[in-house]
Structures are given as C-alpha cells and as structure tokens.
C-alpha cells in the first residue's frame, strides 16, 4: 500500500487539495495507522511553526486610517500629473520651436505656401516673427491647452495643513484655487492678459511674469513654468508656483496677514513670524520642503522650497511694489 507522502500531508492539512484528493486521502488515513500517525505528527509540526512565527512581529499592529493613506495616494497622483504636465509643456514648446524653425526654413527656401500651412497648424510665435530664439514667448495655444478647465464655482475651505498641501489641493480642484478659511472669494481675477482662462490657475508667459505681475516671486531663477493665481475681490492673495529646470518647485503665497493667518498657523510653530522662521514642513510623501515666512507691515509672504536654498531665495524675493 502506498503511503501518503509528506508534501501531500502538508497540502491536505493546509486545505490546498481538491475535494476528490481529500476524499482519497481521508479514506486512506482511515485504514492506515502509519499515515494517520504521520498526519498527527505533521499537524503538530505545522501548529508549532505557526506558533513560533506568531511570536515574530510587532506586539501590536495599529491600523492607520484608510483615509490617511488615500490622502497620500492622491498627493502622489497630483505630483505625477504635474510632472507629466511639465514634461508635456516642455515637449510642446520644443515641438513648437522645431516646427517654427521648419516653417522659417521653408520660407527661406521659397516655399511660402508650405510655411503658411505649417504655421496655421502650429500655434507658435516662431523665430521668423522677430523674437530671439532664447526669449520665445510661450505659444498662447499651448498655454490654453495646459490650463486645467475650471469645473467648480464654489471654492472649498483650506483643508490641508501645509503650503504644499494648499497648492496641491488648489490644483486638485481642477483649476480653482482654495482660499484659506475665512477668506471670502467673490471674484476671480486672473493675472496677466495672455493665456487667461476661466480657471484661476493658469500658465502665464514667462516674460510676462519676469516683468512682474504684482506677485511675490523669486528673481533670477531658471524657471520652465510659472503658475499664478489670485484670490479675493482685489486679488489680496497671490500665489505663485515657479518650476525650475531642475524640477524643483518654489512656491510663494503673498497677502494680508489677517487673511493668511490660517495657512500661517500650520506653517509657523507659534512663534514670531516677523523675522522669518525656517522649519520643515511635512507632506506630499516626499522629503519635505521648508517654508520661510516674512512679514512686511500688515502683509505676509510664505516662501516654500528646498530647505538648502530657501534662505538665499528669500533674499532674492521680489515683492510687489504696490504693497
């Protein structure tokens, strides 16, 4: 009589066999003392293994709230989307420049009609228009394409704690910025004339922001993308996001201290904000940006970016002359 091999005994006890196999084994066990003794021995071995392994592990495992993980997952999704958008923006600019160059070449070779055809399909200010290649304005059509559509008419209150979370949430609402609690948003005022859209978040031409649009921004950065939004009846709060060629993002929020109190409460560890306080923020599931605050009269600027360069950035912070 064939005895049941060890691995089948284990599989049987682990309930890993089919019903037919179980029936076969059970009928054998009923008639074979050797195998039934082996079954008992293996069952004991199995229980001991389980018992030993049970001692391995944290003594208590607390279950974090699912919603907390969902927040992190959502923040990562936003970061990925922004990276993608940033990449798409750069790619579209390259394509536009390339096509513009192609059009100019065709014109030079006398193919005027072909150039016109290309130009019509290409929303670009090409070098043939006289702009130096290095200071190409952002094509308006490209800007509009990258601008998230505004789908909300009501603005939720500030939910996140950090500046980064505030921006992330603003982006998440597909275009509409989120006002700190207590801020009544009765009018949306896009800044800049080019690339204006229904949404507050919009990509603005680099040269436009370089000239200054009333926003608090850091001078002299090698930016590939600038986003600006203004909140409030007179645009009391201006938020600027400057994406550097290195991929890092410098964010500023500028506005009356009274209106930014809520945001500041999360950024400043209860201390005096007049001198600026460097501290690590937390969030976004990545190494945290730091936030520096600066108070000028009744107005406050929050500057967020990589900790190692923040102090330098603050000294280069250009505040709007009107304030």
């Amino acid at each position, binding site marked *: 009589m064939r005895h049941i091999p*060890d*691995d*089948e*005994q*284990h*599989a049987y006890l*682990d309930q*890993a066999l089919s019903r037919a196999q179980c029936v076969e084994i059970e009928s054998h066990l009923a008639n074979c003392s050797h195998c039934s003794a082996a079954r008992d021995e*293996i069952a004991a*071995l*199995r229980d*001991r*293994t*389980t018992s*030993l*392994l049970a*001692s*391995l*592990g*944290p*003594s*208590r*495992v*607390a*279950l*974090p*709230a*699912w919603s*907390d*993980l*969902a*927040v*992190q*997952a959502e923040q*990562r*999704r936003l970061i990925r989307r922004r990276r993608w958008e940033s990449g798409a923006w750069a790619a579209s600019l390259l394509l536009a420049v390339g096509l513009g160059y192609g059009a100019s070449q065709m014109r030079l070779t006398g193919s005027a009609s072909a150039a016109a055809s290309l130009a019509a399909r290409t929303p670009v200010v090409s070098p043939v228009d006289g702009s130096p290649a290095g200071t190409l304005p952002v094509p308006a059509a490209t800007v509009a394409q990258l601008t998230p559509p505004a789908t909300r008419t009501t603005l939720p209150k500030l939910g996140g704690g950090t500046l980064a979370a505030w921006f992330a949430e603003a982006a998440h609402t597909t275009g509409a910025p989120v006002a700190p609690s207590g801020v009544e948003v009765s009018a949306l005022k896009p800044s800049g004339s080019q690339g204006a859209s229904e949404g507050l978040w919009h990509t603005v031409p680099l040269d436009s922001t370089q000239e200054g649009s009333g926003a608090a921004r850091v001078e002299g950065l090698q930016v590939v993308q600038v986003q600006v939004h203004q909140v409030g009846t007179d645009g009391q709060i201006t938020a600027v996001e400057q994406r550097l060629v290195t991929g890092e993002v410098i964010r500023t929020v500028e506005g009356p201290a009274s209106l930014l109190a809520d945001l500041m409460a999360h950024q400043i560890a209860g201390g005096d904000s007049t001198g600026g306080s460097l501290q690590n923020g*937390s*969030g976004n*599931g990545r*190494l*945290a940006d730091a936030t520096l605050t600066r108070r000028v009269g009744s107005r406050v600027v929050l500057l967020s970016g990589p900790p190692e360069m923040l102090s330098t950035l603050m000294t280069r912070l250009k505040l709007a002359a009107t304030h």
Partner: protein
Amino acid sequence: MDDLEQLYKTTYTAVVRFLFRKVWDADRAHDLAQEVFIRAMAHRPEKPRAWVFAVAANLARDEARAAIRRKRHLTLLKDDPGTMPHQEPSPDESAEHKEQMDQVEEALATLSERDREVLLLWDAGMSYTEIAGQTGLAVGAVGTTLARARRRLIEAHDNRHQRDHAAHS
C-alpha cells in the same frame, strides 16, 4: 467601502508581520506596509491580494539590498502621533518577547531563501496557488517546500533552544 479598503482592513496586519520578518524593524514594516497600500490605490491591481504581497516582498528585498537602517521617511502618518498609537509593552514582557523573537529569527535565518519566502507567504495567509504565482514554483512544489521549511525551522529552533538550555545549566 471598496474592495481595496476591505482588503486593507483584513490584510494590513498580515502584511506588517510579513514585512517585519524580513526587515526586522517594526516602524519600517509599518512604513512599507503603508507604502504597499498607497501604491495599490494608484495601480488598482486585478488580483489585489496577490499583488499586495508581491509588492511587499519586492519592497523588503529592496530594503535588504540597501542594507542600511534608514530613518523614518513616511511623514504624514508618522508625524501625527494620533494615528499611530503604539503601546509599549512592560519591560519584562518586552525582554521575554525579544528573546523569543531572537530565537525564531535565528532559526528562520537558517532556511534557504526560497523556503523562508514560501513559509512566510503561507503564514501571511496566502494560498498554495498564490504562493506559486508569486514565487514561480509549481503549485505541487509548494507543499514540498512548506514541508521542508517547517521541519527545518522547528529543528533549528529546537537545536538553539537546547544549546541555550545547556549553557544555562
């Protein structure tokens, strides 16, 4: 409650324990387990249970390769003391538990990597089919591997226990 959240509630503890037995650091095991489920939310895998353990195993492997004890990285949950109510055991309980853990850890270390993986996956609640899918073994070979792994674990543990006993007497 969606399927993934349901899986999270029923499997998180098993994932933490599975990871702990690979990285031997409770905080790190928690971090990695959370990482697994955050990724699952983004990927929405078809077979989430098998996926979760496969990713957990990969993360643990990466961790082992790094071979350094990193400091805490996951920030949101960890920085908020309210979400992670760790209750410290008493010193006696802790010492006894530690000794017991050391013995089992040492015994587990004597197993081959394949045997250890299969044993830990089984202990985390995976079926033979799931273990086969993750390890590349034939389903029929899972029983053989488990049989060997269990026997070796017990033998190694008992040998160590006897050695300790002899040393004390």
